[in-house]
């Protein structure tokens, strides 16, 4: 029987080496059947060790249906000073709007996105494809057979979500919109308008 310390050590090593979130079930397959229960406890202990703390720069998070180690977001300025930053572009508002549509309406087609945004969104969709935040998921069986778009695991990992169900529900917004609107932003009034 592998002792508890070794189980923990092995789990930590796996998490350290993995570049993508690993599903706990898959991680436990490293161990023999009869050790799984003990390994599960060991995993919990390792995750506990990697809880965010002021003096810790690395923490464990559950994203995209798995577990992974990552750095604390607020430490990014230090990292940027020493490592080259690649592919960390800020997403434009157009990209975020499109991403929101795909995330909430998936699977969705480009014409549907265009209908909702009121603008042709092909360019934005291809940017999102390139960033691997969305992916093609077959075609819709309607006239023209347009491509369907879905979000990817990378999307979940980037936004720190375990699954798309964790997206803030749209109904919440609906509720917010259901109530009487306040006076809006006071500065934006069309003061000089009626002269």
């Amino acid at each position: 029987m592998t002792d508890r310390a070794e189980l923990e050590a092995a789990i930590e090593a796996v998490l350290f080496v993995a570049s993508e979130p690993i599903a706990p079930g898959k991680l436990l397959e490293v161990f023999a059947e009869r050790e799984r229960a003990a390994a599960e406890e060991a995993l919990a202990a390792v995750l506990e060790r990697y809880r965010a703390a002021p003096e810790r720069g690395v923490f464990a998070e559950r994203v995209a249906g798995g577990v992974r180690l990552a750095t604390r977001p607020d430490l990014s300025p230090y990292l940027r000073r020493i490592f080259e930053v690649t592919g960390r572009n800020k997403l434009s508002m157009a990209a975020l709007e499109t991403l929101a549509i795909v995330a909430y309406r998936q699977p969705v087609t480009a014409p549907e996105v265009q209908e909702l945004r009121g603008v042709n969104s092909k360019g934005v969709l291809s940017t999102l494809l390139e960033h691997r935040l969305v992916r093609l998921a077959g075609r819709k069986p309607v006239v023209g057979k347009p491509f369907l778009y879905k979000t990817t695991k990378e999307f979940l990992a980037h936004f720190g979500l375990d699954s798309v169900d964790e997206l803030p529900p749209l109904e919440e917004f609906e509720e917010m919109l259901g109530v009487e609107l306040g006076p809006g932003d006071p500065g934006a009034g069309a003061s000089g308008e009626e002269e």
Partner: protein
Amino acid sequence: MTTTSRASGALPPEWQVRLPEFEGPLDLLLHLVRVNEVEITEISVAQICDQFHETLRLMERFNLDVAADYIYEAAQLIFLKSRMLLPRRKTVDGEDAEGDPREELVQRLLEYRRLKEAAQSLAEIHGLRRGVWTRGRQAASFHAEEGVDLGEVSLYDLLGALKTVLVRYDFDHPDAMHLRADTFSVRDQFEALLLRLDPQRPLDLIADLKSRGGRAEVVSAFLAVLEMIRLGLVRLHATGGDILLYRTPKELQRHELEAIRA
């Protein structure tokens, strides 16, 4: 209240500053609803329609490209405005037979506003999470082979791979190139011509066009020359039956090149 009198009339100055920031016609409409301090459901089509058109005129005045999407929406608004002016048909018991013509617009705006809210919350998460670093792909040595996760391979990857194959094939088999349909983009011709133009020596346009392989190429090359004249990159000089092209000292701007579409 200090309102500077403005030629543009209805629009307060802060709108103009914000013009290019709109994500599209719906975004502009939402903005108009907000500044008018009305509920989306209480929207005045006539007012919104006028302000929308006024904004487009302003955009044009500032030489901003008014995209087709805006123009399409503007036409929709005019149509809607005209419908609002028509007397509505009533049913026998005096009910409105057609419903509110604004209904569809109102629904679209509500939906779009919901999406903006969602996008906003994604933006906040994105801002926060952008600082998260992982160890990335350094651990590749442990993988049997570097590649794409089968579960995540999409048509996009498949096509990308096909493209790689074909590009490489063409590269390795230059004689296969002639199998391609000869399509000549104006932009390609533009770039090629610009490279060939020597500031010291003029180019004989007619002779150059005559040396071209076919009609399509001549047309593209000619359009490219017209584009260059428009951008002030070349000067034309006609002597006798010849037309000479002179390269001017003006530098080509990146956005100018990008604006030239095939």
